[in-house]
């Protein structure tokens, strides 16, 4: 009942409006802390030297690129199965954010790879599948932009996103399945008991990007709600001059 209520675009619009400033403040505070820790406090690595600081951006960005994709695909599936408009809007809103995280992971990886591996880019499994993820995001956005009717755009996008989910385990396990240049995971959901699932130094930057994602997702969802609900009475009431 309660869940159903928050799934109403009108109520969610108001709720998101209340939450956004709080999320923004938390993001800014964490960002300040994270930059201080990452640039000043963290010691240089014994092998990588100061370039290890790139990892505080690269690892969470790469993790988020996959996480946001799963959010987008799950939202798309919910919209497809239960015909829930709010879920469709969440999928549409998540795509450009996910694409930007993917680009960040690729660029920072390249900037780190040049001094450490001696190359900006290699066509190895991890890098190639991450690049494919970037194209999946772009494909999702292009497909939705090409279809005028919102319901059909949402359905087509959701199908594409769901087919693309196959790429996520490929990215995650690429470092185990193939002999790659890329090193094993720093953040892992599947691991032996007793070993931490995440390298502790990556926890703070990951949290920053997650809260940031929530903030901009809510902002974009509010815009989507207004756009998709523009023919309803409550939106007309809202924009009345």
């Amino acid at each position: 009942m309660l869940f159903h209520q928050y799934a109403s675009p009108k109520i969610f619009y108001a709720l998101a409006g209340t939450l956004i400033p709080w999320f923004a403040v938390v993001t800014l505070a964490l960002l300040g802390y994270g930059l201080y820790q990452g640039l000043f406090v963290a010691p240089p690595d014994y092998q990588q030297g100061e370039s290890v600081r790139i990892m505080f951006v690269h690892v969470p960005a790469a993790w988020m690129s996959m996480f946001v994709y799963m959010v987008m695909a799950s939202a798309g599936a919910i919209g497809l199965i239960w015909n829930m408009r709010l879920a469709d809007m969440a999928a549409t809103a998540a795509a450009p954010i996910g694409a930007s995280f993917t680009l960040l992971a690729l660029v920072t990886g390249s900037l780190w790879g040049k001094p450490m591996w001696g190359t900006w880019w290699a066509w190895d499994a991890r890098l190639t599948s991450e690049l494919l993820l970037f194209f999946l995001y772009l494909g999702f956005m292009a497909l939705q932009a090409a279809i005028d009717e919102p319901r059909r755009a949402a359905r087509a996008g959701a199908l594409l996103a769901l087919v693309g989910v196959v790429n996520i385990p490929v990215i995650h396990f690429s470092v185990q399945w193939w002999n790659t240049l890329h090193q094993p995971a720093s953040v892992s959901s599947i691991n032996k008991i007793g070993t931490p699932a995440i390298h502790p130094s990556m926890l703070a930057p990951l949290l920053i990007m997650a809260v940031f994602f929530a903030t901009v997702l809510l902002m974009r969802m509010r815009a989507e709600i207004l756009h998709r609900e523009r023919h309803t009475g409550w939106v007309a009431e809202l924009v009345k001059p």
Partner: protein
Amino acid sequence: MNWSEFFAMGGYALNVWGSYGMAVLVLAFNVLAACRRVKSVRRELEETTRLNQAESE
């Protein structure tokens, strides 16, 4: 701590600052793009409301 040493990043200045710069760009892009989207949707809505009103008058 020495500031010039800090900015030199042990010889990885371009890579480290490039990465953090890119991160700042991505964060800024997301906020600006979201704000722009909100604005354009609202403008579009106000436009249609105005047209509807003009029609009904």
